[in-house]
């Protein structure tokens, strides 16, 4: 006998049970010693980055606008050709904004108040074909819900400047808005001959206050805004604008609004007596589609302004549609599918080979085994997802920018969230399908179920549209992809906030919570079955 073993000792009551740490090390050893799994997980990350590059690369921006060259057909591209994306202004907090309107202003020095009565607000909607530049030649009457006419104060007519405004709207009543995202409602109801509205904007230092009134005598304060660092001399005036309508087409039709202002009264010291009329953000280089540049004239004591555009957050599809994560999702799905296969096999292979019995003789605490496996595959999947996204997000943005695409500005915090979120997305899915593997015990059925439940909704979600798509991204594991959301929803803009346009129905972390619930359910079921079943 060549045994080098010592004579067996009676089992001592060693108080050191093998801790969870040794189960973890054991499961980690299992994972890293199967070359196919390691290759698969590395491939998942590489695939994700590669697809991100391909998707970004295939996205080129450029085109022609304006009237077709003389002698060519009506469907020829315009003569005003450009490469790269049109100009998208950036608001005071770094967000992409729309800032296109007609303004009649008079600079104000120091404090002051501008009052005006809006006596009418009407509109036109472009009805012409999509391939020609919008003009007033093809329109029908119609007022956009968020058509705006009112009083505005801003330090500068530069697009993206801070501002505050009191306004009448197409169908949202009187509103007090400032700096593109803040909004408070005033008097409801549309502007009619029988129900004109009075508006007032007061400047006191950095503080701006908006009032409305039905009769010009009783005034209600709607809200205030504090625009820190407002210069002594500010631009104060009347404005009209009217946003793109998506009611009839998904590509949108530009609109124009016309408002009549009466009883325009300035209390305060005007820098000059001359009122100037400006068309802001309606040039050919500006991204916001407008119906003409608007106009302003003064019949009698009234002011009549026509304007087109919007003063609000920039939204897709108008701004061109790319975000820090828009090239990532496809690669992430590829990585997800590979991760699902590896994570499932991490346990089903043990069942197939009977190895699970060896595992349970080494660690009879079956829940510990499952939790250790989940921890190991979860952490590894997190690293795969986070690494892939950490490379993919900057790469995607770089490629998109290089191709002339507009990429919505993103804060570092948002990029970190997308990167960590991609990791958590893969980790939760890996844990869920591992549990599925423990429940089903067969590689083929567990992988199929895993892909159907945890990857297909994402793919299906890209094909569907409307409420079905939104539903998928709310309640199925596809909700996890909501963590890729970059664009903030804006209640002050009517636009198709679809996933195709980069808008996800749930808040980023809320989406992961939904996915987490699926993983917890699967893990709970697997634990229950593992304890009950014979190995």
């Amino acid at each position: 006998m060549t045994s080098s073993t010592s004579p067996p000792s009676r089992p001592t009551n060693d108080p050191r049970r093998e801790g969870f740490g040794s189960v973890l090390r054991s499961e980690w050893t299992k994972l890293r010693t199967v070359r196919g799994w390691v290759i698969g997980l590395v491939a998942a990350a590489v695939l994700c980055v590669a697809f991100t590059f391909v998707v970004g690369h295939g996205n080129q921006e450029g085109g022609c606008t304006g009237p077709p060259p003389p002698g060519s057909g009506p469907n020829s591209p315009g003569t005003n050709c450009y490469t790269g994306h049109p100009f998208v202004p950036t608001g005071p907090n770094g967000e992409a904004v729309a800032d296109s309107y007609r303004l009649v202003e008079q600079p104000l020095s120091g404090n002051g108040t501008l009052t005006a009565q809006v006596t009418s607000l009407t509109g036109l909607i472009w009805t012409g074909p999509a391939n020609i530049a919008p003009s007033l030649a093809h329109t029908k009457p119609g007022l956009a819900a968020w058509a705006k006419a009112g009083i505005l104060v801003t330090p500068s007519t530069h697009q993206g400047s801070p501002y505050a405004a009191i306004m009448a709207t197409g169908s949202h009543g009187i509103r007090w808005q400032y700096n593109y995202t803040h909004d408070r409602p005033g008097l409801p109801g549309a502007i009619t001959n029988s129900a004109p509205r009075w508006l007032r904007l007061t400047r006191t230092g950095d503080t701006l206050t908006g009032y409305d009134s039905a009769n010009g005598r009783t005034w209600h304060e709607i809200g205030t805004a504090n625009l820190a660092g407002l210069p002594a001399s500010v631009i104060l005036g009347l404005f009209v604008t009217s946003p793109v309508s998506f009611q009839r087409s998904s590509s949108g039709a530009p609109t124009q609004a016309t408002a009549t202002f009466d009883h325009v009264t300035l209390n305060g010291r005007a820098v000059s007596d001359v009122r100037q009329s400006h068309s802001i953000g309606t040039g050919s280089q500006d991204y916001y589609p407008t119906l003409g540049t608007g106009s302003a004239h003064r019949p009698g004591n009234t002011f009549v302004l026509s304007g087109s555009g919007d003063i609000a957050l920039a939204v897709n599809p108008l701004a061109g549609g790319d975000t820090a994560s828009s090239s990532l999702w496809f690669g992430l799905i590829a990585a997800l599918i590979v991760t699902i296969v590896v994570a499932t096999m991490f346990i089903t292979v043990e069942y197939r080979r009977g190895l699970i019995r060896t595992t349970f003789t080494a660690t009879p605490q079956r829940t510990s085994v499952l939790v250790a496996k989940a921890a190991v595959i979860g952490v590894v999947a997190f690293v795969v997802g986070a690494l892939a996204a950490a490379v993919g997000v900057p790469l995607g943005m770089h490629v998109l920018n290089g191709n002339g695409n507009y990429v919505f500005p993103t804060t570092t915090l948002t990029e970190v969230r997308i990167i960590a979120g991609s990791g958590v997305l893969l980790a939760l899915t890996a844990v869920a399908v591992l549990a599925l593997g423990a429940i089903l015990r067969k590689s083929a059925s567990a992988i199929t179920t895993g892909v159907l439940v945890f990857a297909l909704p994402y793919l299906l979600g890209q094909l569907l549209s409307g409420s079905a798509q939104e539903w998928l991204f709310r309640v199925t594991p596809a909700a996890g992809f909501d963590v890729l959301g970059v664009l903030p929803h804006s209640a002050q803009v009517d636009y198709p906030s679809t996933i195709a346009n980069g808008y996800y129905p749930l808040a980023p972390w809320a989406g992961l919570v939904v996915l987490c619930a699926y993983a917890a359910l699967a893990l709970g079921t697997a634990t229950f079955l593992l304890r009950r079943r014979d190995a």
Partner: protein
Amino acid sequence: MSEPIIEVTDLHKRFGSAVALDGMTFTVAPGRVTGFVGPNGAGKSTTIRVILGLDAPDEGTALVCGQPYQHLQRPLNQVGALVDAAALQPSRTGRNHLLWMARSQDMPTSRVDEVIELVGLGSAARRKAGGYSLGMRQRLGIAAALLGDPPVIIMDEPFNGMDPEGIIWMRRLLHSMAVEGRAILVSSHLMSELQDMADHVLVIGRGKVLADASVDELIAHASGDQVLVRTSAASEAAGALQRAGNAARVIDGNTISVSGLEAQHIVEVLSQAQIPFSEVTAQRASLEDVYLQLTSGEAEFRASSDRKAQS
């Protein structure tokens, strides 16, 4: 014999309508090889899985070192088991297979290399286990069982697929480990595999123990203390033995069968009666005969020395 190290008491288990275990009760003592033998489907593997905490019995208990397996601390240090040598991840090397097991018990990597040498796996240990022959898998399985240097070793059908050389090696290994004081439980569906190796045998049939005895006791029982006498005067000899108070039966013209008397006394009786005889032979059954006799008739037999095991 010292205190039992495995105690199986009144195990019952059904799989659907099929009864797998039907009052399985036995003990395994250290310092000897206990053969666990019975036809396929007798309940050997189920019993072993219950002992290892893999299957839950409907009734009854199985204790290892006085505790249910699930309560053992670092169980591979107390029980080494070879349940299924094919239970391997084919793309993992043999050494890595042992390595993850070692990690789960906080054992050093050096122990992995020790057992690899011990079972003679050597250079093959760094190859993928999927390419191993059946014999190499068995050696790897044994290495896994020995990893924790446990006082109890349980092997389910370890000889399956082994070449004769391997079987001899395995018998020596198991024997030497028993000599070291370990409790060895080895199952087989072939009694012949255990005949020269097991010190003690548990014969299993239909979910319970049919015989629990040392090899000698079993054989003696099956032989039924029969002694064959060859003589030219068969009827006189039978008469003389019957007068001496023993059952004697004439089988044919010159052979009689005697029970209840040892060969030595028969010689004395016949010599005194001056009856000539040519041969007096104690009839020895082979272990295989006993096994077949037990498992076909399902008769129960327990040696007196082990009666205490049956409560």
